[in-house]
């Protein structure tokens, strides 16, 4: 669905957004992070978290073999554990990944648009997106032009997201804000709304390629944005924190936030995802602990 707003209208709406109460936001995130989730609830949370993972490999050294092994892990992570939501790869690996997950519930997500910097001409970014969709990507993870955004050229960012949305066709579009480069909470709020006005299906925190990745307060802020956006427009948008979420404890903190801020409507992999790679192994180890009673270690899960 394309946006009905013009660039100038969207930019004006976004500029009119109120500032963020940083202290209050961080206190709220810290408060929600203290919830204790144990036993049966923990087992459910672990399985839910596994089913929400976009299992990711974004390395220059990715090979078809590595992508295939990642895909088979995504389809069947461990014993009776649920499949992950998707595998997330570079466009050149989409065909390999699509072949490997065929027949399963696992989707293929592809980063595109000159990931991770996005500093390439727009037509190259669009061609990148179209190639990924043609190769079989179900979801496109695009990066915004942080340079344009930080320079105040919101209209350009808006039009680019709209153009990529059009190029994505049927594929769901995740818009990576790269919050670590936006730096301030105010800018994260503005970028979230701008992306949603432009037609994002998901807003995603980070590429995982810069120093600061997903943090709980930033993700909380984005959850508030999607909640308010649905209240305003009736359109539901998903959230995907990515990068830096490495263990079960952290993942459960995010799920608590989803439940408290967004509620049941978002508590599925249709509307909430984790962009992660090492998180899955920790979830599997915790799962084994709940099943066997023994804590295990890295020798009990696959080496990725």
């Amino acid at each position, binding site marked *: 669905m394309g946006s009905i707003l013009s660039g100038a209208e969207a930019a004006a709406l976004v500029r009119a957004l109120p500032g963020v109460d940083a202290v209050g936001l961080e206190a709220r995130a810290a408060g929600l992070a203290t919830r204790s989730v144990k036993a049966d609830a923990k087992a459910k949370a672990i399985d839910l978290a596994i089913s929400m993972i976009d299992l990711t490999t974004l390395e220059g050294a990715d090979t078809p073999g590595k992508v295939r092994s990642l895909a088979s892990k995504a389809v069947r992570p461990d014993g009776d554990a649920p499949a992950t939501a998707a595998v997330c790869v570079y466009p050149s690996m989409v065909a390999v990944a699509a072949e490997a997950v065929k027949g399963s519930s696992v989707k293929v997500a592809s980063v595109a648009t000159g990931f991770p910097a996005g500093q390439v001409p727009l037509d190259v970014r669009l061609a990148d997106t179209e190639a990924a969709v043609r190769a079989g990507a179900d979801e496109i993870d695009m990066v915004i032009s942080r340079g344009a955004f930080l320079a105040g050229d919101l209209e350009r960012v808006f039009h680019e997201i709209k153009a990529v949305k059009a190029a994505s066709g049927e594929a769901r579009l995740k818009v990576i804000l790269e919050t670590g480069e936006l730096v301030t909470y105010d800018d994260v709020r503005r970028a979230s709304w701008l992306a949603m006005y432009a037609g994002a299906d998901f807003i995603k925190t980070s590429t995982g390629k810069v120093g600061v990745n997903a943090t709980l307060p930033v993700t909380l802020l984005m959850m508030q944005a999607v909640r308010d956006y649905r209240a305003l427009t009736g359109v539901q948008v998903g959230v995907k924190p990515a990068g830096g979420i490495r263990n079960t404890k952290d993942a459960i903190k995010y799920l608590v936030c989803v439940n408290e801020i967004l509620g049941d409507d978002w508590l599925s992999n249709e509307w909430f995802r984790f962009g992660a790679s090492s998180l899955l192994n920790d979830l599997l180890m915790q799962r084994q602990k709940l099943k066997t009673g*023994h*804590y*295990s*270690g*890295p020798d*009990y899960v696959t080496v990725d």
Partner: protein
Amino acid sequence: MSEHADRLRVKKTYKLYVGGKFPRSESGRSYPVSSPDGAELANAALASRKDGRDAVAAARKAQRPWAGQTAYLRGQILYRAAEMLEGRAGQFAEELADATGAEAHEALGTVEAAIDRLVHYAGWTDKYTSVLGGANPVAGPYFNHTTPEPLGVIAIVAPQDDPLLGLIDAVAPAIATGNTVVVLASEAKPLPALSFGEVLATSDLPGGVVNLLSGKAAEVAPHLAAHADVNGLDLGGVADAGLAASLEAAAAETLKVVRRPGRTGTSLDLLRQWTEYKTVWHPAGMAATAGGGY
């Protein structure tokens, strides 16, 4: 000193030694440590089961790189630990005398024995593989040889009444062969062991190779015994036979090698305790050059 007689002494806070750092217990707990005649010596951190798990994770992380170091370097590092202990022998003798009630000269003798024990095992690092392993005569065109390899992560309940020498006796052979260890120090006399952590930290020993916890064996050891990522369990310091039996049962659930309380042996026996044998068959002679035969 006399003009500073009214100076308030800076008392040492004894902390755990985990992953090369000196953290307090995750639980925030501590317990008072006294000498045998009841004089309060200091407070030590009271480790929780979570501290135990953190220590196992640190030990696992350190194990592969430590085993991958050359035997020569492992020996050098153990020797370095002996050097550092030698430099602080006076302090350790004092701590040991306070902890055990031993006479000063006896305590110094024990510290010197501990130093010598480290040097002894430093010498073994590049020799035990030749003594325990070797080429095996086989009836076929193969070169067949056996080498002892480290088990992995060893959990040690250190002796209760011999807080320094007993601990080094348990730790040194385990790390000499490339294992990493999680040690529960003597419950009532943990201070020399915790100070020994400072010696190790300044000996180029990579963080996580030796992790020292102070606290109650009955509280922490069951969790180490049941941890699937621990490969060996030394019950040398478990006085309670019932506890030892239950720990051994828990260890069997997760397929650990167990050293029972009271078991002694030569230093070679101790080195062998925490190794497993790997035997390799290499095609040799005609078979290898012909590219087949197996």
